Protein backbone atom coordinates (compact mmCIF):
# COMPACT_ATOMS: atom_id res chain seq x y z
CA UNK A 1 0.00 0.00 0.00
CA UNK A 2 1.26 3.47 -0.77
CA UNK A 3 -0.13 6.92 -1.23
CA UNK A 4 1.48 7.20 -4.59
CA UNK A 5 -0.83 9.02 -6.95
CA UNK A 6 -0.33 6.41 -9.62
CA UNK A 7 -0.94 3.43 -7.39
CA UNK A 8 -3.89 1.21 -8.23
CA UNK A 9 -4.67 1.29 -4.50
CA UNK A 10 -5.34 5.01 -4.64
CA UNK A 11 -9.10 5.16 -4.68
CA UNK A 12 -9.28 8.05 -7.13
CA UNK A 13 -6.95 6.30 -9.54
CA UNK A 14 -8.99 3.12 -9.22
CA UNK A 15 -12.31 4.91 -9.75
CA UNK A 16 -11.00 6.68 -12.81
CA UNK A 17 -9.70 3.44 -14.20
CA UNK A 18 -13.06 1.76 -13.56
CA UNK A 19 -14.94 4.56 -15.27
CA UNK A 20 -12.82 4.52 -18.37
CA UNK A 21 -12.60 0.75 -18.78
CA UNK A 22 -15.59 -1.05 -17.32
CA UNK A 23 -18.08 -0.39 -20.11
CA UNK A 24 -15.91 -1.68 -22.91
CA UNK A 25 -14.92 -4.68 -20.81
CA UNK A 26 -18.58 -5.49 -20.24
CA UNK A 27 -19.32 -5.28 -23.95
CA UNK A 28 -16.24 -7.33 -24.81
CA UNK A 29 -17.22 -10.10 -22.40
CA UNK A 30 -20.79 -9.96 -23.63
CA UNK A 31 -19.78 -10.33 -27.27
CA UNK A 32 -17.54 -13.21 -26.30
CA UNK A 33 -19.90 -15.17 -24.06
CA UNK A 34 -23.32 -13.88 -25.08
CA UNK A 35 -24.93 -13.10 -21.72
CA UNK A 36 -25.14 -9.47 -20.71
CA UNK A 37 -26.12 -9.89 -17.06
CA UNK A 38 -23.41 -12.45 -16.61
CA UNK A 39 -20.95 -10.08 -18.28
CA UNK A 40 -21.83 -7.37 -15.76
CA UNK A 41 -21.23 -9.77 -12.87
CA UNK A 42 -17.92 -10.82 -14.37
CA UNK A 43 -16.82 -7.19 -14.69
CA UNK A 44 -17.64 -6.62 -11.01
CA UNK A 45 -15.67 -9.68 -9.97
CA UNK A 46 -12.69 -8.79 -12.14
CA UNK A 47 -12.49 -5.28 -10.67
CA UNK A 48 -12.84 -6.61 -7.14
CA UNK A 49 -9.90 -8.91 -7.82
CA UNK A 50 -7.94 -5.96 -9.13
CA UNK A 51 -8.74 -3.92 -6.04
CA UNK A 52 -7.80 -6.72 -3.69
CA UNK A 53 -4.49 -7.15 -5.50
CA UNK A 54 -3.91 -3.47 -6.14
CA UNK A 55 -0.50 -3.43 -4.51
CA UNK A 56 0.73 -6.09 -6.93
CA UNK A 57 -0.74 -4.70 -10.14
CA UNK A 58 0.45 -1.34 -11.38
CA UNK A 59 -2.08 0.88 -13.11
CA UNK A 60 -0.51 0.47 -16.53
CA UNK A 61 -0.82 -3.31 -16.22
CA UNK A 62 -4.33 -3.09 -14.80
CA UNK A 63 -6.11 -3.11 -18.12
CA UNK A 64 -4.65 -6.36 -19.36
CA UNK A 65 -5.08 -7.74 -15.84
CA UNK A 66 -8.85 -7.19 -15.73
CA UNK A 67 -9.28 -8.41 -19.31
CA UNK A 68 -7.42 -11.62 -18.52
CA UNK A 69 -9.32 -12.19 -15.27
CA UNK A 70 -12.67 -11.48 -16.91
CA UNK A 71 -11.96 -13.71 -19.89
CA UNK A 72 -10.90 -16.56 -17.61
CA UNK A 73 -14.00 -16.13 -15.46
CA UNK A 74 -16.14 -16.22 -18.59
CA UNK A 75 -14.45 -19.37 -19.80
CA UNK A 76 -14.82 -21.15 -16.49
CA UNK A 77 -18.50 -20.26 -16.31
CA UNK A 78 -19.33 -21.25 -19.86
CA UNK A 79 -17.09 -24.30 -20.04
CA UNK A 80 -19.90 -26.66 -19.21
CA UNK A 81 -22.64 -24.95 -21.08
CA UNK A 82 -22.79 -23.77 -24.63
CA UNK A 83 -24.90 -20.66 -24.26
CA UNK A 84 -26.85 -19.27 -27.12
CA UNK A 85 -26.00 -15.67 -27.74
CA UNK A 86 -28.76 -13.72 -26.03
CA UNK A 87 -29.14 -10.92 -28.37
CA UNK A 88 -32.63 -9.61 -28.87
CA UNK A 89 -33.02 -8.49 -25.31
CA UNK A 90 -30.14 -6.12 -25.20
CA UNK A 91 -29.24 -4.89 -28.60
CA UNK A 92 -31.68 -2.27 -29.67
CA UNK A 93 -32.00 -0.14 -32.68
CA UNK A 94 -30.85 3.43 -32.51
CA UNK A 95 -33.72 5.81 -32.71
CA UNK A 96 -33.66 7.43 -36.09
CA UNK A 97 -36.08 9.84 -37.63
CA UNK A 98 -38.39 7.51 -39.47
CA UNK A 99 -41.51 9.62 -39.35
CA UNK A 100 -41.52 10.26 -43.05
CA UNK A 101 -41.15 6.60 -43.99
CA UNK A 102 -44.12 4.59 -45.19
CA UNK A 103 -45.35 1.78 -42.91
CA UNK A 104 -44.33 -0.86 -45.47
CA UNK A 105 -40.81 0.45 -45.48
CA UNK A 106 -40.64 0.46 -41.70
CA UNK A 107 -41.94 -3.11 -41.54
CA UNK A 108 -39.38 -4.21 -44.09
CA UNK A 109 -36.60 -2.51 -42.18
CA UNK A 110 -37.74 -4.14 -38.97
CA UNK A 111 -37.68 -7.51 -40.64
CA UNK A 112 -34.25 -6.79 -42.03
CA UNK A 113 -32.92 -5.74 -38.64
CA UNK A 114 -34.27 -8.91 -37.04
CA UNK A 115 -32.56 -10.98 -39.66
CA UNK A 116 -29.34 -9.08 -39.20
CA UNK A 117 -29.43 -9.49 -35.43
CA UNK A 118 -29.96 -13.21 -35.77
CA UNK A 119 -27.15 -13.48 -38.27
CA UNK A 120 -24.82 -11.62 -35.89
CA UNK A 121 -25.86 -13.88 -33.01
CA UNK A 122 -24.95 -16.89 -35.13
CA UNK A 123 -21.49 -15.63 -36.04
CA UNK A 124 -18.53 -17.61 -34.71
CA UNK A 125 -17.40 -16.08 -31.41
CA UNK A 126 -14.25 -14.34 -32.62
CA UNK A 127 -15.94 -12.85 -35.68
CA UNK A 128 -18.85 -11.59 -33.61
CA UNK A 129 -16.54 -10.07 -31.02
CA UNK A 130 -14.54 -8.17 -33.62
CA UNK A 131 -17.56 -7.13 -35.65
CA UNK A 132 -19.45 -5.72 -32.66
CA UNK A 133 -16.45 -4.00 -31.09
CA UNK A 134 -15.95 -2.29 -34.41
CA UNK A 135 -19.58 -1.40 -35.09
CA UNK A 136 -21.14 -0.81 -31.70
CA UNK A 137 -18.17 0.40 -29.74
CA UNK A 138 -16.57 2.10 -32.74
CA UNK A 139 -13.17 0.69 -31.93
CA UNK A 140 -10.40 0.76 -34.52
CA UNK A 141 -8.79 -2.49 -35.64
CA UNK A 142 -5.69 -1.50 -33.73
CA UNK A 143 -7.62 -1.01 -30.50
CA UNK A 144 -9.42 -4.33 -30.95
CA UNK A 145 -6.13 -6.06 -31.64
CA UNK A 146 -4.70 -4.71 -28.38
CA UNK A 147 -7.64 -6.01 -26.38
CA UNK A 148 -7.18 -9.57 -27.46
CA UNK A 149 -3.42 -9.54 -27.97
CA UNK A 150 -3.36 -10.41 -31.65
CA UNK A 151 -2.11 -8.62 -34.73
CA UNK A 152 -4.09 -5.95 -36.55
CA UNK A 153 -3.94 -8.15 -39.62
CA UNK A 154 -5.73 -10.95 -37.77
CA UNK A 155 -8.50 -8.56 -36.76
CA UNK A 156 -8.87 -7.35 -40.34
CA UNK A 157 -9.20 -10.92 -41.56
CA UNK A 158 -11.83 -11.67 -38.93
CA UNK A 159 -13.76 -8.56 -39.85
CA UNK A 160 -13.66 -9.47 -43.51
CA UNK A 161 -14.85 -12.99 -42.73
CA UNK A 162 -17.60 -11.69 -40.45
CA UNK A 163 -19.00 -9.61 -43.27
CA UNK A 164 -18.85 -12.50 -45.70
CA UNK A 165 -20.64 -14.72 -43.18
CA UNK A 166 -23.34 -12.13 -42.56
CA UNK A 167 -23.80 -11.58 -46.26
CA UNK A 168 -24.22 -15.35 -46.75
CA UNK A 169 -26.79 -15.62 -43.92
CA UNK A 170 -28.89 -12.63 -44.86
CA UNK A 171 -29.47 -13.43 -48.51
CA UNK A 172 -31.00 -11.02 -50.94
CA UNK A 173 -33.46 -8.93 -49.03
Amino acid at each position, binding site marked *: *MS*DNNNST*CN*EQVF*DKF*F*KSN*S*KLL*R*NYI*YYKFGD*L*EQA*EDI*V*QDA*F*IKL*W*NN*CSKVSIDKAKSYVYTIATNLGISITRHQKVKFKYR*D*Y*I*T*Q*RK*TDINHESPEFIALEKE*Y*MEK*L*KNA*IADLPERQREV*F*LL*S*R*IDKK*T*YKEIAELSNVSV*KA*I*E*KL*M*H*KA*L*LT*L*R*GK*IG*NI
Partner: protein
Amino acid sequence: MLDDKKDDIFLSRWISGELSEEELLEFKSHPEYEYYVKIMAGADALNLKDYDVEKELSALKSKSSYTAKEKSNSVIKLWPYIAAAASIAIILGIFLFNPNESFSTNFGEQLSVTLPDGSEMILNAKSLASFDKENWKENRMVTLEGEAFFKVKKGSKFTVTTKNGAVSVLGTQFNVQSQNSFFEVTCYEGRVSVTNKENKKILTAGKGYRNLENTDPESWIFDIKEPSWLSNTSSFRSIPIKYVFKELEEQYDLKIKTTEINLETIYTGTFPNNNKEVALRTVFSTLGMKYSVSKDSKTVVLEK
Protein backbone atom coordinates in the same frame (compact mmCIF):
# COMPACT_ATOMS: atom_id res chain seq x y z
CA MET B 1 -20.28 -13.44 -53.89
CA LEU B 2 -17.01 -11.73 -53.43
CA ASP B 3 -14.77 -14.76 -53.79
CA ASP B 4 -13.20 -13.31 -56.91
CA LYS B 5 -11.35 -11.00 -54.56
CA LYS B 6 -8.08 -12.55 -53.51
CA ASP B 7 -7.61 -9.96 -50.81
CA ASP B 8 -8.76 -11.47 -47.51
CA ILE B 9 -9.03 -8.14 -45.74
CA PHE B 10 -10.75 -6.29 -48.55
CA LEU B 11 -14.01 -5.64 -46.72
CA SER B 12 -12.20 -4.56 -43.57
CA ARG B 13 -10.28 -2.02 -45.55
CA TRP B 14 -13.50 -0.86 -47.17
CA ILE B 15 -15.15 -0.27 -43.77
CA SER B 16 -12.23 1.68 -42.40
CA GLY B 17 -11.97 3.72 -45.59
CA GLU B 18 -8.62 2.37 -46.62
CA LEU B 19 -9.51 1.34 -50.17
CA SER B 20 -7.85 3.24 -52.96
CA GLU B 21 -10.06 5.25 -55.29
CA GLU B 22 -9.88 2.70 -58.06
CA GLU B 23 -10.67 -0.15 -55.69
CA LEU B 24 -13.65 1.74 -54.31
CA LEU B 25 -14.98 2.58 -57.77
CA GLU B 26 -14.64 -1.02 -58.84
CA PHE B 27 -16.36 -2.27 -55.70
CA LYS B 28 -19.22 0.19 -56.14
CA SER B 29 -20.02 -1.28 -59.52
CA HIS B 30 -19.91 -4.82 -58.14
CA PRO B 31 -23.42 -6.38 -57.79
CA GLU B 32 -22.67 -7.28 -54.17
CA TYR B 33 -21.88 -3.73 -53.15
CA GLU B 34 -25.40 -2.64 -52.22
CA TYR B 35 -25.88 -5.68 -49.94
CA TYR B 36 -22.77 -4.85 -47.97
CA VAL B 37 -23.82 -1.24 -47.69
CA LYS B 38 -27.10 -2.39 -46.23
CA ILE B 39 -25.43 -4.70 -43.73
CA MET B 40 -23.18 -1.89 -42.58
CA ALA B 41 -26.07 0.55 -42.32
CA GLY B 42 -28.01 -1.97 -40.27
CA ALA B 43 -25.04 -2.77 -38.04
CA ASP B 44 -24.33 0.89 -37.45
CA ALA B 45 -27.90 1.38 -36.32
CA LEU B 46 -27.47 -1.21 -33.57
CA ASN B 47 -27.10 -0.14 -30.02
CA LEU B 48 -26.42 -1.90 -26.77
CA LYS B 49 -28.30 -1.59 -23.52
CA ASP B 50 -26.90 1.30 -21.49
CA TYR B 51 -24.21 0.83 -18.91
CA ASP B 52 -24.45 3.07 -15.89
CA VAL B 53 -20.81 3.42 -14.84
CA GLU B 54 -21.54 5.33 -11.62
CA LYS B 55 -24.12 2.80 -10.53
CA GLU B 56 -21.84 -0.11 -11.31
CA LEU B 57 -19.01 1.52 -9.39
CA SER B 58 -21.12 2.05 -6.33
CA ALA B 59 -22.43 -1.52 -6.63
CA LEU B 60 -18.81 -2.66 -6.70
CA LYS B 61 -17.99 -0.72 -3.57
CA SER B 62 -20.95 -2.06 -1.67
CA LYS B 63 -19.83 -5.65 -2.19
CA SER B 64 -18.59 -7.38 0.91
CA SER B 65 -15.41 -8.59 -0.78
CA TYR B 66 -14.48 -5.01 -1.59
CA THR B 67 -12.67 -3.62 1.41
CA ALA B 68 -11.64 -0.02 1.68
CA LYS B 69 -7.91 0.51 1.95
CA GLU B 70 -6.38 2.59 4.70
CA LYS B 71 -5.57 6.00 3.40
CA SER B 72 -2.70 6.99 5.65
CA ASN B 73 -0.58 4.18 6.94
CA SER B 74 1.62 6.48 9.06
CA VAL B 75 -1.08 6.58 11.71
CA ILE B 76 -1.06 2.84 11.96
CA LYS B 77 2.70 2.78 12.22
CA LEU B 78 2.69 5.31 15.04
CA TRP B 79 -0.06 3.64 16.99
CA PRO B 80 0.10 -0.06 16.24
CA TYR B 81 -1.36 -1.08 19.61
CA ILE B 82 -4.24 1.30 19.34
CA ALA B 83 -4.89 0.03 15.85
CA ALA B 84 -4.81 -3.56 17.04
CA ALA B 85 -7.14 -2.74 19.88
CA ALA B 86 -9.42 -0.92 17.49
CA SER B 87 -9.58 -3.83 15.09
CA ILE B 88 -10.33 -6.23 17.93
CA ALA B 89 -13.12 -3.90 18.96
CA ILE B 90 -14.42 -3.87 15.40
CA ILE B 91 -14.28 -7.66 15.14
CA LEU B 92 -16.09 -8.00 18.45
CA GLY B 93 -18.56 -5.45 17.22
CA ILE B 94 -19.27 -7.53 14.16
CA PHE B 95 -19.86 -10.60 16.29
CA LEU B 96 -21.98 -8.85 18.85
CA PHE B 97 -24.01 -6.98 16.32
CA ASN B 98 -26.29 -9.50 14.72
CA PRO B 99 -25.93 -9.06 10.96
CA ASN B 100 -29.22 -10.85 10.38
CA GLU B 101 -31.91 -8.79 8.81
CA SER B 102 -35.42 -9.77 9.94
CA PHE B 103 -38.81 -8.97 8.61
CA SER B 104 -42.15 -9.88 10.12
CA THR B 105 -45.77 -9.29 9.32
CA ASN B 106 -48.69 -9.01 11.65
CA PHE B 107 -52.30 -10.12 11.29
CA GLY B 108 -53.65 -9.35 7.84
CA GLU B 109 -50.45 -7.73 6.61
CA GLN B 110 -48.32 -8.39 3.57
CA LEU B 111 -44.79 -7.19 3.11
CA SER B 112 -42.66 -7.09 0.01
CA VAL B 113 -38.92 -7.30 0.64
CA THR B 114 -36.17 -6.85 -1.93
CA LEU B 115 -33.21 -9.04 -1.07
CA PRO B 116 -29.63 -7.78 -1.62
CA ASP B 117 -29.32 -9.41 -5.05
CA GLY B 118 -32.62 -8.01 -6.27
CA SER B 119 -34.61 -11.17 -5.61
CA GLU B 120 -38.05 -10.52 -4.23
CA MET B 121 -39.77 -11.98 -1.21
CA ILE B 122 -43.40 -11.27 -0.39
CA LEU B 123 -44.45 -12.24 3.11
CA ASN B 124 -48.03 -13.22 3.84
CA ALA B 125 -49.74 -12.40 7.14
CA LYS B 126 -48.19 -13.43 10.46
CA SER B 127 -44.89 -14.56 9.02
CA LEU B 128 -41.29 -14.08 9.99
CA ALA B 129 -38.26 -14.22 7.70
CA SER B 130 -34.62 -13.46 8.30
CA PHE B 131 -31.41 -13.59 6.31
CA ASP B 132 -27.75 -12.76 6.71
CA LYS B 133 -27.13 -9.57 4.80
CA GLU B 134 -23.34 -9.63 5.19
CA ASN B 135 -22.82 -13.03 3.65
CA TRP B 136 -25.62 -12.82 1.14
CA LYS B 137 -23.30 -13.01 -1.84
CA GLU B 138 -21.82 -16.32 -0.65
CA ASN B 139 -24.88 -17.77 0.94
CA ARG B 140 -28.33 -16.90 -0.30
CA MET B 141 -30.37 -18.30 2.56
CA VAL B 142 -33.63 -17.17 4.10
CA THR B 143 -35.07 -18.62 7.29
CA LEU B 144 -38.83 -18.62 7.19
CA GLU B 145 -41.69 -19.22 9.55
CA GLY B 146 -45.06 -18.68 7.95
CA GLU B 147 -45.74 -18.14 4.28
CA ALA B 148 -43.90 -16.27 1.55
CA PHE B 149 -43.67 -16.06 -2.20
CA PHE B 150 -40.23 -15.80 -3.77
CA LYS B 151 -39.06 -14.46 -7.11
CA VAL B 152 -35.43 -15.46 -7.23
CA LYS B 153 -32.86 -13.82 -9.50
CA LYS B 154 -30.55 -16.18 -11.28
CA GLY B 155 -27.31 -16.87 -9.47
CA SER B 156 -25.90 -19.15 -6.81
CA LYS B 157 -28.06 -21.56 -4.86
CA PHE B 158 -30.95 -19.91 -3.06
CA THR B 159 -32.28 -21.71 -0.02
CA VAL B 160 -35.31 -21.20 2.18
CA THR B 161 -35.01 -23.10 5.43
CA THR B 162 -37.95 -23.86 7.65
CA LYS B 163 -38.23 -26.22 10.54
CA ASN B 164 -40.26 -28.55 8.30
CA GLY B 165 -37.73 -28.76 5.50
CA ALA B 166 -35.58 -26.80 3.09
CA VAL B 167 -36.35 -25.55 -0.41
CA SER B 168 -33.53 -24.67 -2.74
CA VAL B 169 -33.39 -23.28 -6.26
CA LEU B 170 -31.22 -21.47 -8.74
CA GLY B 171 -33.67 -18.88 -10.05
CA THR B 172 -37.42 -19.19 -10.14
CA GLN B 173 -40.69 -18.26 -8.51
CA PHE B 174 -42.18 -20.30 -5.73
CA ASN B 175 -44.31 -20.16 -2.63
CA VAL B 176 -43.41 -21.69 0.72
CA GLN B 177 -45.81 -22.12 3.61
CA SER B 178 -44.52 -23.59 6.83
CA GLN B 179 -46.54 -23.37 10.04
CA ASN B 180 -46.29 -25.80 12.91
CA SER B 181 -46.67 -29.14 11.18
CA PHE B 182 -47.96 -27.73 7.91
CA PHE B 183 -45.53 -27.55 5.01
CA GLU B 184 -46.52 -26.66 1.47
CA VAL B 185 -44.41 -25.60 -1.51
CA THR B 186 -45.73 -24.55 -4.90
CA CYS B 187 -43.50 -23.79 -7.86
CA TYR B 188 -44.52 -21.16 -10.42
CA GLU B 189 -41.46 -20.98 -12.64
CA GLY B 190 -38.28 -22.98 -13.11
CA ARG B 191 -37.49 -25.91 -10.79
CA VAL B 192 -37.22 -26.18 -7.05
CA SER B 193 -35.88 -28.90 -4.86
CA VAL B 194 -37.67 -29.66 -1.59
CA THR B 195 -35.87 -31.54 1.14
CA ASN B 196 -37.20 -32.59 4.51
CA LYS B 197 -36.47 -35.35 6.96
CA GLU B 198 -37.95 -38.15 4.89
CA ASN B 199 -38.03 -36.91 1.35
CA LYS B 200 -36.30 -35.10 -1.44
CA LYS B 201 -38.47 -33.97 -4.29
CA ILE B 202 -37.95 -31.88 -7.41
CA LEU B 203 -40.87 -29.66 -8.41
CA THR B 204 -41.23 -28.17 -11.86
CA ALA B 205 -43.42 -25.18 -12.75
CA GLY B 206 -47.09 -25.84 -12.02
CA LYS B 207 -46.44 -28.52 -9.39
CA GLY B 208 -47.11 -28.41 -5.69
CA TYR B 209 -45.98 -30.46 -2.72
CA ARG B 210 -47.55 -30.74 0.69
CA ASN B 211 -46.71 -32.52 3.88
CA LEU B 212 -49.21 -32.43 6.73
CA GLU B 213 -49.06 -33.92 10.16
CA ASN B 214 -49.97 -37.62 10.22
CA THR B 215 -50.49 -37.90 6.47
CA ASP B 216 -48.34 -38.97 3.57
CA PRO B 217 -46.78 -36.21 1.49
CA GLU B 218 -48.80 -35.44 -1.62
CA SER B 219 -48.16 -33.71 -4.94
CA TRP B 220 -50.50 -32.03 -7.37
CA ILE B 221 -50.63 -29.93 -10.52
CA PHE B 222 -52.08 -26.42 -10.83
CA ASP B 223 -52.24 -23.76 -13.50
CA ILE B 224 -52.30 -20.36 -11.80
CA LYS B 225 -49.50 -17.85 -12.34
CA GLU B 226 -48.95 -16.73 -8.75
CA PRO B 227 -50.32 -17.55 -5.31
CA SER B 228 -53.86 -16.29 -4.80
CA TRP B 229 -52.96 -14.53 -1.57
CA LEU B 230 -51.00 -11.98 -3.57
CA SER B 231 -54.36 -10.84 -4.90
CA ASN B 232 -55.94 -10.96 -1.43
CA THR B 233 -57.58 -14.34 -1.61
CA SER B 234 -56.73 -17.33 0.53
CA SER B 235 -57.39 -20.59 -1.24
CA PHE B 236 -57.36 -24.16 -0.02
CA ARG B 237 -57.30 -27.52 -1.69
CA SER B 238 -58.75 -30.43 0.26
CA ILE B 239 -57.22 -29.57 3.58
CA PRO B 240 -58.35 -30.17 7.19
CA ILE B 241 -60.41 -27.17 8.31
CA LYS B 242 -58.12 -26.47 11.24
CA TYR B 243 -55.64 -24.98 8.75
CA VAL B 244 -58.39 -22.89 7.18
CA PHE B 245 -59.37 -21.56 10.60
CA LYS B 246 -55.75 -20.81 11.35
CA GLU B 247 -55.49 -18.75 8.18
CA LEU B 248 -58.70 -16.88 9.02
CA GLU B 249 -57.28 -16.10 12.44
CA GLU B 250 -54.05 -14.81 10.95
CA GLN B 251 -55.63 -12.70 8.28
CA TYR B 252 -58.23 -11.08 10.54
CA ASP B 253 -56.66 -11.26 14.01
CA LEU B 254 -59.43 -13.47 15.34
CA LYS B 255 -59.86 -16.25 17.78
CA ILE B 256 -62.12 -19.03 16.55
CA LYS B 257 -63.75 -21.09 19.27
CA THR B 258 -64.20 -24.56 17.93
CA THR B 259 -65.73 -26.75 20.57
CA GLU B 260 -67.46 -29.86 19.30
CA ILE B 261 -66.23 -29.37 15.79
CA ASN B 262 -64.31 -32.03 13.91
CA LEU B 263 -61.22 -30.14 12.90
CA GLU B 264 -60.19 -32.81 10.46
CA THR B 265 -63.13 -32.15 8.13
CA ILE B 266 -61.75 -31.59 4.66
CA TYR B 267 -62.29 -28.22 3.01
CA THR B 268 -61.72 -26.89 -0.50
CA GLY B 269 -62.45 -23.26 -1.27
CA THR B 270 -61.34 -19.66 -1.00
CA PHE B 271 -61.99 -16.58 1.08
CA PRO B 272 -61.10 -12.92 0.58
CA ASN B 273 -58.41 -11.39 2.79
CA ASN B 274 -59.87 -7.91 2.77
CA ASN B 275 -63.48 -8.43 3.81
CA LYS B 276 -64.04 -10.18 7.12
CA GLU B 277 -67.82 -10.47 6.81
CA VAL B 278 -67.64 -12.15 3.44
CA ALA B 279 -64.74 -14.34 4.49
CA LEU B 280 -66.51 -15.69 7.56
CA ARG B 281 -69.77 -16.19 5.71
CA THR B 282 -68.05 -17.98 2.82
CA VAL B 283 -66.17 -20.43 4.96
CA PHE B 284 -68.80 -21.27 7.55
CA SER B 285 -71.80 -21.39 5.28
CA THR B 286 -70.11 -23.87 2.94
CA LEU B 287 -69.37 -25.99 5.99
CA GLY B 288 -72.98 -25.64 7.11
CA MET B 289 -71.99 -24.01 10.41
CA LYS B 290 -73.63 -21.21 12.32
CA TYR B 291 -71.42 -18.64 13.99
CA SER B 292 -71.54 -15.51 16.08
CA VAL B 293 -69.00 -12.75 16.45
CA SER B 294 -68.24 -11.30 19.86
CA LYS B 295 -68.77 -7.61 20.65
CA ASP B 296 -65.13 -6.64 20.27
CA SER B 297 -65.22 -8.64 17.03
CA LYS B 298 -62.14 -10.55 18.11
CA THR B 299 -63.78 -13.89 18.79
CA VAL B 300 -65.90 -16.10 16.59
CA VAL B 301 -67.94 -18.79 18.29
CA LEU B 302 -69.09 -21.72 16.22
CA GLU B 303 -72.26 -23.63 16.92
CA LYS B 304 -72.89 -27.01 15.56
